[in-house]
């Protein structure tokens, strides 16, 4: 049976209640919106990219505990990364949650916090909540 505490781990509740880097960014070089048609939640992700480096990441918008926590943890995981590193973190995170992808846990090592979101994969109708900000990040980076 599914255990709710695997989904709502303390660290997720903490990020959900007090999201980090939740602010608009006037100096953003890239930004994009993510929209979840299931609940109508909308998240905007802002990036400041200098050369090959993601200097700053932030987000705005409201949503459920999972989407807020995931967005918050994402900003912390991606800041200071090169674009290649950020892309590869996106792929690893996505692979952790979406069963059709091959999980590549090795790449997520060093991101203990992000691994807390792994429990979401047992709740198929919540996976979109966890990936919402990440897809917005990807769109922002690709200028879509």
């Amino acid at each position: 049976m599914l255990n709710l505490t695997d989904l709502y781990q303390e660290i997720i509740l903490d990020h959900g209640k007090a999201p980090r880097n939740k602010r608009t960014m006037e100096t953003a070089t890239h930004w994009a919106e993510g929209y979840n048609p299931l609940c109508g939640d909308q998240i905007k992700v802002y990036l400041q990219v200098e050369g090959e480096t993601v200097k700053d990441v932030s987000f705005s918008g409201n949503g459920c505990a999972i989407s807020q926590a995931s967005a918050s943890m994402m900003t912390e995981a991606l800041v200071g990364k090169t674009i290649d590193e950020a892309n590869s973190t996106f792929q690893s995170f996505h692979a952790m949650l979406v069963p059709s992808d091959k999980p590549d846990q090795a790449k997520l090592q060093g991101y203990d916090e992000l691994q807390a979101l792994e429990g979401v994969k047992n709740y198929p109708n919540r996976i979109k909540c966890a990936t919402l900000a990440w897809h917005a990040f990807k769109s922002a980076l690709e200028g879509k």
Partner: protein
Amino acid sequence: MVATILSNPIKDQFPALDQMVSGHPLAYLDSAATTQRPVAVLEAMEAFYRHDNSNVHRGIHSLSVRATDHYDDARRQIARFVNASVPEEIVFTKGCTEAVNLVAQAWGRQNLTQGDVIAVSEMDHHSNIVPWQVIAEATGASIEPISVTQKGELDISSLRAVLATGKVKLVAFKHVCNAIGTVNPVSEVAELVSTHGATTLVDGAQALAHIDVDVQALGVDFYAMAGHKVYGPMGIGALFARKELLEAMAPYQVGGGMIQKVTLTSTTYAPVPEKFEPGTPNVPGAIGFAAALDWLSDSGKQRLWNLESELAHQARERLQSINGLRVIGSARETAPIVSFVMEDAHPHDIGTVMDSEGVAIRAGHHCCQPLMDRMGVGSTARASFAAYSTQEDVDALIRGAERVVEIFGGKC
């Protein structure tokens, strides 16, 4: 103190309700999304496939005659249930959405033109908004909103103001609000609309299961219904349309089964309602839909309606006493639907926690984004009751809400 309600007399007729979810007995409180079906409906549909399965119309053989009889009977039963004056005023569709699209396309194309106004309520379901946007764009008509009050009721003065422009050709609104439960004063609105020479379309998806629907007494021109919201199968619905309107309308979809005579260059259409039912119809669906309405009548609908509204009322009261929880909408008359938000938990999280307690509720915007905007929320958690709801369901809902508070905290 809320009185405890004794056991439900008909719950054991619903096989799907007898199961465990997440280690708890299922408390199904998502009937506004779709009801469960009683054995009587399942058996009627199975009997068709087992004994009478054949295509309807034009068949000479016995099975086809029986299938046609059952299909025609189903139409008569539905017409009787909503008091249509003749069965020909009932067109089978795949649901409410198709019924609204049928009117938008068939009636709208013929009757709307540049400068005309379609008035649509802010409370409406996307399925009674989007078809009008599409036909407005195609015909040059425009859409004007009918406002909703903070209580979640239609603002009749806003309707009067829109009608006073003299440009309104059609007013579309719902009988019962799927998102917050409001029961709208259909006859009052329909009368007002007709004195301005406009046509009324009512989305009746949520009404049939919970209140009396008499299309003649309501005075509506079009009334859309869905089988699966009233204990019938999915994929079947019906449009009631006044016969003279239906006869004047050109077909919406064309093909076999709706023609009288075809040459390669021209076609004479069949009379109504066949004119609007091309292709092989959903015969078992129609049979199941009619069986569901019969089941509801035979089970003593008024007694069941009293029970479900009592439970919903109790749920509303008990939910409201939970710290940080707010019920959305406070209309004078409501169907057994309770929509709420909690200060520290998003509706999606509420839904997940409830599911872990075996409680099935819906979380989201309920296909009513304009209404959510109006009520100042992004989405809500919604518990919706039906004839088979029990005291245990309400208790489980409250336990679920308390568990949400445990996990996410009460009021900040």
